[in-house]
């Protein structure tokens, strides 16, 4: 007879003999992945969306539920809803249909996902994550699958399969690294996007996405910040900048008739270290005023990020519409965008075709730099320029007075944020800017940067407090490369051009590479800028002593 478990063993979730059995190998996959049920673990998933968030935007099935509960409180006809929606999307998105059909399981993608690399969980291999969907596709939409079932890699959509979908849909950060290596160009992010769309139709989502969506819909930004609070935060930055530089900058808000509208993620306004990047933008704009820059901030289009991308195409479109609507209302000629990740995916890949009709009758035109006269032809269709392109152009034309030695306390490396790198090919501009504002720049190994860059681990809405272990695994390959340059060159600053990166990396570094801080590129730009009328600078925007000034204080 089996010995009854003692309470202490139960508490630890393990039996004594298992503890001593060091050769223990988990049974996972001995029976094949299809027969291995999902094991939903705490700290590996996010909390469910609260009903109020869903009601605000008319999302289905608002209720209180948890992934740890047996009953997920689904509508009785959930299967019908999902399979109907599956069919609609197969017809609507040619890519989705192709991605369901063309994979030859070559395995090129298998070891490219940072969540697999960090966990060794085979269901995090992109090929297998996609198979979770393909198996249901085969069973319902292919003759072989209907006839042969599991032999043809087909299976029914059961409640356990649905739970598995949900669990792994939120372990993919839609970074698209795997797609770089796929010989067919299968884009796992698109499968995840559709998968999340399907599950949202029956009320399966996460609160870290549902809340920003609802807030963004109501107030224009993820945090639910109202216009007066947005303005007062920038006023606080004005004071900070004046203390450090002796110069008072004066941003304008919602100003009709301005030439350019500036839109940036709200994370830059409300969360360190993004706040220093935000101060960087403010200083840059102040500097350029005398050279002819005419720019305004908006407290309505107060968010560059778009968490609608992580729920459905329709919600992405709804949330994005404020950009052109505000540009039209203010009568600007073009839009300048701050350092953000998925915002640029939405802008570069969707906005032009999705919402450009909203710009009809507006003053929007092909962007031209008022300082250098450079035409940004690449943004002819969207009318929106990335601030790194804008600043790189200024530097190229020698329009900024820079003293890179002011950043000599930094040994900098650069993380290519997934979306600007892979969704818009913005690889050279940030590097060009950094090399002009810093004297010490070191690249991470080639297989970890540019198109092959690793995700921070928190993209696509995964930066919640409750799934920190998932993020530590997913962020491991990036942190490992940072650790390498930290140990080899003494790198102490990880720069990036994404607000999610700036939110995720400080904790990632604290765990994996203590001693490395995180910055946006325009924080370093502003610190290197020599301003008209500035006082003798002794500290940077973080109130840290500039290199060389510590010694002079001691003398």
């Amino acid at each position, binding site marked *: 007879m089996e010995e009854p478990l003692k309470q202490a063993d139960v508490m*630890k*979730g*393990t039996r004594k003999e*298992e*503890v*001593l059995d*060091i*050769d*223990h*190998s*988990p049974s*996972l*996959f*001995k029976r094949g*992945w299809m027969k291995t049920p999902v094991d939903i*673990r705490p700290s*590996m998933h996010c909390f469910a969306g609260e009903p109020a968030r869903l009601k605000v935007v008319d999302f289905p099935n608002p209720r209180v539920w948890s992934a740890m509960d047996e009953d997920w409180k689904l509508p009785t006809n959930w299967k019908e809803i999902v399979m109907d929606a599956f069919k609609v999307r197969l017809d609507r998105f040619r890519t989705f249909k192709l991605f369901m059909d063309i994979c030859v399981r070559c395995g090129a993608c*298998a*070891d490219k996902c940072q969540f*697999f*690399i*960090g*966990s*060794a*969980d*085979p269901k995090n*291999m992109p090929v*297998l994550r996609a198979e979770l969907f393909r198996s249901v596709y085969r069973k319902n939409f292919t003759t072989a699958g209907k006839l042969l079932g599991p032999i043809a890699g087909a299976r029914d959509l059961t409640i356990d399969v649905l739970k598995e979908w949900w669990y792994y849909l939120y372990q993919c950060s839609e970074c698209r690294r795997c797609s770089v290596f796929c010989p067919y160009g299968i884009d796992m992010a698109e499968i995840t996007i559709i998968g999340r769309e399907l599950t949202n139709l029956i009320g399966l989502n996460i609160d870290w996405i549902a809340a920003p969506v609802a807030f963004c819909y109501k107030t224009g930004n993820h945090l639910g*910040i109202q216009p007066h*609070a947005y303005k007062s*935060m920038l006023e606080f930055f004005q004071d900070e900048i004046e203390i450090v530089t002796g110069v008072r900058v004066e941003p304008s808000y919602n100003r009709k008739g301005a030439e350019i509208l500036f839109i940036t993620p709200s994370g830059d306004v*409300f*969360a360190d270290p993004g706040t220093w990047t935000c101060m960087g933008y403010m200083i840059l704009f102040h500097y350029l005023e005398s050279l002819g820059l005419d720019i305004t901030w908006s407290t309505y289009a107060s968010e560059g990020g778009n968490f609608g991308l992580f729920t459905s195409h329709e919600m992405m479109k709804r949330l994005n519409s404020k950009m052109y609507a505000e540009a039209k209302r203010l009568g600007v000629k073009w839009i300048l965008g701050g350092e953000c990740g998925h915002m640029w995916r939405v802008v570069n890949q969707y906005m032009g075709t999705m919402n450009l009709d909203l710009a009809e009758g507006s003053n929007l035109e092909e962007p031209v730099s008022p300082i250098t006269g450079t035409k940004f032809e690449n943004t002819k269709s969207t009318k929106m320029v990335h601030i790194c392109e804008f600043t790189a152009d200024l530097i190229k034309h020698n329009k900024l007075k820079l003293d890179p030695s002011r950043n000599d306390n930094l040994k900098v490396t650069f993380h290519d944020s997934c979306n600007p790198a892979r969704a818009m090919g913005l690889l050279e501009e940030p590097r060009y800017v950094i090399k002009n504002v810093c004297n010490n720049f070191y690249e991470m*190994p080639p*297989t*970890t940067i540019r198109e092959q860059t690793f995700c921070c681990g928190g993209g696509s809405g995964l930066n919640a*407090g409750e799934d*920190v*272990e998932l993020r*530590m*695994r997913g962020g*491991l*390959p990036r942190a*490992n*490369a940072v650790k*390498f340059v930290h140990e080899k060159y003494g790198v102490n600053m990880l720069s990036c051009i994404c607000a999610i990166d700036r939110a995720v990396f400080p*904790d990632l570094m*604290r*765990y*994996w590479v*203590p*001693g490395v801080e995180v910055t946006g590129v325009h924080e370093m730009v502003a610190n290197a800028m020599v301003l008209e009328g500035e006082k003798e600078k002794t500290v940077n925007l973080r109130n840290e002593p500039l290199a060389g000034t510590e010694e002079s204080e001691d003398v």
Partner: protein
Amino acid sequence: MDLKNLLLRKKSPIVKKWCEVVLRTYPEGGQAFLKKKDRFGNPVGHTIAEGIESIFDELLQGTKSDKIPLFFDNILRLRAVQDFSPSKAVGFVFGLKKVIRKELGSKLLKDGTSEEWAAFESEIDGMGLLCFDIYTQCREKIFDIRIKALRNQSHRLLKMAGVAYDLPEDYELSEEDRDLKKAHANKSH
């Protein structure tokens, strides 16, 4: 031949098998990948392979090595955020005993060697306790990160809502207090 020399001669199979003990704790479908040699593409496998060999080398040096905790830290930092119970996360250390017993068999029972083996086993037990400390520190770091994130978030929101009062930003600290504050901040980092 003394135990250290026996172990040195069998280093290659022992290290290989001890590594396998660690890798077998991962899902079967992921184990082949973890064996791939790629420092940046396979940081988990690389850290384990490098750590296990280095720890074994240091053990054979005989003197108290300050590098052993470092290599264990590298390995346990991974396992503290992977799907392991605490016992599973550190249990691989004791696997070394089993591996050595299988490799050296009756040679361990010979006069002289058996005493050395008993002492060596004690060293392995000591490493087990060390691993327990390191694993706990890693878990505490995770909890600390969670607490800090929550505190920063709620404090900022309270301040923004005008609920929480904050001391003026220009509140002057003495130089001594400033240094102390900096030292505390560095420690908690």
